[in-house]
């Protein structure tokens, strides 16, 4: 069985397992929707009080926020196996992954497809749709197909980026379990930060999330195209069509790091 087919098989099994606990699934999905909704309420309240965020309007923040949350919820659903790596190692379960004649990445991706993340996904998608509709009414130039294609490409890049971050997080958890919360800076912190235009941040922060962990490349620049405006920082207009590739590149790098981490794991026997 090829890797892809095995992956879908594992995903199917994981979904069926989760559906054995339907009440819990529905409550948790709803819960995530409400919790993330509470978060957006804060943004709304600030706009209600201040009117604008520098030169940015509410619906533009909605595009950024929605894009980041949609992408993160997908990545979050895909990577529970990596997110739980520390736990799996402590329980000795990771050894079971190691005695299978398959790629460890494939097996960890197939460990669970976390369906309840649909809560964040739907909430993000609703806000994103609102932002896109208002943007198009105020004259965003892409049209339906252009918007869809740009959006899809941005989401692919952003999901790849977040998956990459989770893989690196798992590498860190080989070494230390207690300090793993720091990685939340790049996952939850990353979503939070990319809910706003990167121009409002200070320089080093922008640099970190443009060149280090290229969040801006997968959310901010493509979002500019979607809302039909130019970067106040002076980047060329088409950059948003190219930049999501940075997320894919980041994923590739994280896979290389994963290989080294595995070797480290097997030589230290954490």
């Amino acid at each position: 069985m090829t890797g892809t087919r095995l992956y879908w098989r594992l995903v199917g099994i994981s979904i069926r397992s989760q559906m054995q606990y339907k009440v819990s699934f529905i409550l948790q999905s709803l819960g995530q929707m409400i919790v993330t909704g509470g978060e957006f309420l804060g943004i709304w309240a600030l706009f209600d009080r201040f009117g604008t965020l520098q030169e940015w309007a509410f619906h533009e923040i909605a595009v950024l926020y929605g894009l980041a949350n949609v992408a993160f919820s997908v990545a979050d659903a895909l990577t529970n196996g990596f997110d739980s790596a520390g736990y799996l190692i402590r329980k000795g379960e990771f050894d079971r992954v190691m005695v299978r004649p398959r790629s460890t990445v494939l097996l960890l991706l197939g460990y669970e497809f976390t369906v309840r993340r649909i809560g964040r996904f739907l909430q993000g998608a609703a806000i994103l749709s609102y932002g896109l509709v208002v943007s198009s009414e105020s004259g965003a130039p892409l049209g339906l197909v252009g918007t869809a294609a740009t959006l899809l490409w941005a989401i692919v890049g952003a999901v790849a980026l977040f998956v990459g971050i989770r893989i690196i997080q798992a590498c860190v958890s080989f070494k230390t379990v207690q300090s793993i919360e720091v990685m939340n800076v790049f996952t939850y912190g990353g979503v939070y930060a990319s809910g706003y235009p990167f121009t409002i941040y200070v320089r080093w922060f922008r640099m970190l999330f443009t060149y280090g962990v290229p969040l801006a490349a997968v959310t901010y620049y493509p979002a500019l195209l979607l809302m039909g405006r130019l970067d106040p920082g002076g980047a060329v207009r088409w950059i948003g069509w190219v930049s999501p590739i940075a997320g894919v590149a980041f994923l590739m790098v994280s896979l290389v790091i994963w290989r080294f981490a595995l070797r480290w794991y097997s030589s230290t026997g954490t």
Partner: protein
Amino acid sequence: MIRSAARPYLAFFAARFRSQLQYRAAAWAGVVTQIFFGLVSVMVLVAFYRAAGTDAPLTQSQSVSYVWLGQALLLILPFRLDPELREMIQTGDVAYELARPVFLPLSWFARGVADRVAPALLRALPQFAFSMLILPWIGWEEIALVPPASAAAFGLFLVSAVLGSLVAAAIGLIAAATLFWTIAGHGTSILVQTIVWVLSGVSIPLPLYPEWFQPVIRALPFRAMLDTPFQIYLGTTEASAVGGELLMQLFWAVGLFVLAWILIGRGSRRVVVQGG
């Protein structure tokens, strides 16, 4: 007399407190994470203030300080149900606990306070150092935590923060007590998490919510956890009003605790009856 009556609860508090202090690596990680979230929030707020320059109820530096205080004391908030309590109630093991010669609601309350205050303290000090000292030192006064309005304000802030953690522990206890009635406890978790997030002041400073919403905030107990101490620290609560604010916190702490007590009493009777 009073001392000897309180002894088991103080001992319980001290034991939980010490055990919480052991998670040092986690505390460092938490400090870094919370400073990060603080920085983002602060930059966002500054951007809002710059654009508008309105007559908001808080000045920019007050808002910024409010955010830093919120990050420093974040762990006081009852975001999550105590997993041990949850399991005890859901499995019915609570029956054994009821057999002990202690007043159950109070020992759980002591545990709730210890579990919040100890890790919050551990994380608060390095964060204060960062936001009050390091930020101005590297030339970032604009987003630094301002010193307290006065020495007296600082003292009253500490008192108020302690009262705030009592209110938080009582709210956490009520949330846990609802587990006697719900199967999964998810509903409670979600509700508490959302309400606390929106109404405690960690999402955005409470005074920045729309004016029409302020009466609702003032009528509810959630602002008594963080917002009351913060406004005392910042001096936005008039000196003459501080006494009333502290009394209000005390009222909520006691009132909510009594409510939790009643709920636990009712709930545990259910368990005993069901357990036959």
